[in-house]
């Protein structure tokens, strides 16, 4: 099998570590090799978080180079754009549209770009393989905004890039979230999955 490279980006506190563990856990269960890099320490205090997940028969390093991602999964639109050089024409770019404005903007040092008028149009110009979704809204429909990360996992699964199917990922969600929140997270997964399938059908 061809190795699959995922670049998952967002902001500290968005549940990115849990997401990568859901994917990695499912891959291990299927007997595949997995290698991931995580971010711990200072950046977790609201800084940029970049996690790489690589899956294959044998994986040698935990990082990927420019243009080498099969999917760039962005939990925050500006962070998706910051990581865009990891994508090529073959890459699915899947991004949440809900902004998290850094404090550098609030204190007036920096400007946050318009997602609707600047970031998304630029992404559309750069690639045809783009999925944008309001993960926060979908998560709230599923029961709580905190399930945004699982909405994004649903969206990722829908791209069919992973060597893992829907039920394998769902089993891994059950392994990785507290029991009482499993139903809500499965609902969140379905919402992200379905929305992405709908978008892909129209492309």
């Amino acid at each position, binding site marked *: 099998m061809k190795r699959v490279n995922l670049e998952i980006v967002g902001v500290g506190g968005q549940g990115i570590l849990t997401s990568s563990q859901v994917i990695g856990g499912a891959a291990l269960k299927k007997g595949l090799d997995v290698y991931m890099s995580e971010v711990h320490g200072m950046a977790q205090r609201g800084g940029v978080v970049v996690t790489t997940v690589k899956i294959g028969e044998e994986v040698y390093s935990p*990082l990927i180079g420019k243009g080498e991602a099969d999917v760039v999964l962005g939990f925050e639109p*500006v962070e998706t754009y910051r990581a865009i050089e990891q994508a090529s024409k073959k890459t699915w770019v899947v991004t949440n549209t809900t902004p998290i404005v850094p*404090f*550098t903007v609030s204190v007036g040092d920096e400007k946050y770009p318009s997602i609707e008028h600047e970031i998304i149009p630029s992404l559309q110009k750069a690639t045809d393989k783009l999925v944008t979704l309001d993960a926060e809204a979908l998560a709230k429909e599923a029961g709580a905004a905190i399930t945004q990360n699982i909405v994004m996992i649903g969206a990722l699964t829908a791209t069919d890039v992973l060597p893992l199917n829907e039920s394998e990922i769902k089993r891994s969600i059950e392994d990785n979230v507290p029991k009482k929140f499993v139903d809500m997270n499965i609902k969140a997964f379905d919402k992200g999955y379905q929305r992405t399938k709908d978008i892909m059908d129209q492309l």
Partner: protein
Amino acid sequence: MKELLEDESGKKILLLGNEAIVRGALEAGIGHGSTYPGTPSSEIGNTFEKIAKEYGMYFEYSANEKVAMETAAAAAASGVRSMAWMKHVGVNVASDALMTLMYSGVRAGMVIVAAGDPSMHSSQNEQDTRFYSQLGNIPMLEPTTPQEAKEMVKYGFELSEELELPVLIRTTTRVNHARGVVTFDDLQEADGDGHFEKDPARFVAVPQNSVRNHPKLLERMERAEKITEKSEYTYSIGVENPELHVISSGAGFNYIREAKEEFDLPISILKLGMTNPLPIDTVKDFIEDAERLLVVEELEPFLEEKVKALAKEVNPSLDVYGKKSGHFSRLYEYNPDRIKDALSDLMEFERKEEPLETEEHDLPIRPPSLCPGCPHRATYYAVKKALGDREGVFSSDIGCYTLGVQDPLNTADYLLCMGSSVGAAGGFSKNTDQQVFAFLGDSTFFHSGLPALVSGVYNQHDFVYVIMDNRTTAMTGHQPHPGTGKTGMGDPAPMLSIEDLARGAGVEFVETIDPYDIEKTIEVFERAIEHDGISVVIPKHPCALIEQREVRWEPYQIDQEECKQCHICTDRFGCIALVREGDEVMINETLCVGCGQCAQVCPFDAIKQEGK
């Protein structure tokens, strides 16, 4: 992480490098573990914290890395397998003990894990800790993956016993914080029941003993020179008659190996596992008939310079590429792109994917910041209010509170290392007319702020010593410390009082205040500034991340009719839940934790809790 205690040989599990290190120690029957937390090593301690008791070993968070090294050394001298681990700069703190420990050596195996942080993801420098292995004559292993980290820790105990020397395992962020598939071997029962057999000639480092022990160390390292030639962690892969020879160690090896597989490169790689002592014969054999050699190692040319010296002996015409040739930099961690950039100058290969072409946007930077509800923000705000128009010099320290360096607080002017705030504050106070503050946290105070306090009182320094007590070691993931009343094993402990320690050191002005009461905090700082000599102020409030696990407060909102858009809340206080759009300020309800600090800052009472 109870899974780490499963005695199921052959089981495959996805582990963080740091968890794999713990498993390696468990498979070696570790009896004693000690550390002071520091990224990227912290999860080793976090993991032991959860399992040490059930496994049956002793584990402690020591007050600092030097103490961690010394307790582990004594355990190993008493016949108990021990491990001490720390971040790279922690080795500096522990180095005084370590350099002489090499003279006396150990009886049971002792492993030291030194976790480097190239690129400084969460560190004040990116020093190449491998040089300690030469400075102290320490046998050193450099793992490349979580699996190898586990194996090397386990083997490190055996090697340590064979040589009667501690063994250094030098990791980097991309090993400690990489997560990969790790295969379990048999678990061993925890080592224990130590007994210290006295041997002053060996263990008491007075000059007449050290003059005899230093040659013993060199003899032991001569034995290590034979062992390193046969290390199973040193091996070569690749083609015969390669276009390019490569020597590599550590995380850099992963990327060159991957490039070799991906592009089917006609290269041969010698991967070094034990890098002190260097396997000289193995390296000589590898380079003897080579024409071109690339050395791939992060940070300093540690291997490169040695290999060049060996090449002069066996193959003077060898072209050696690396840092000196400009193919690699001594800065920052490597990644697949940096490896390919270096290779593309040396051989032909075609990159597969072109990055997307995109339009330029000025993206706002997103540095880490103090959390909503963080008590440090209120402390900093109060200090600046108390100072008024006077100029303050803010001597900062290592911890979350260093984030005060950012706008709009700007309360960090000088910082070197753990505990440096206090000594530096003394230096500023003796050499300038400025009003000086030292800012450090509770855990850092116990780590190295205490001796500096004693020195400051003795030398009659004059500054405000602010010990920001949030009841935990916050930045590294909330480990207990001597002031928390809990040990690393989860047992109750004496809760050391910072106030009593300061008073005991002879400080006359010692006041504790809850910084959530901003007005009172300002008043305390006003008096502390007036006080001659060292005045200790202890703003004490639990870390917001801990407190928010227990309490839920309603978020605040801004009454836009009452708001006069003075922007004191955003421009002076600067909580990240306060969002400014044009002149209008709003509160992000998802981020706001309802601490109410900003409401105290607002001069127009425009910030209110819903329904109040």
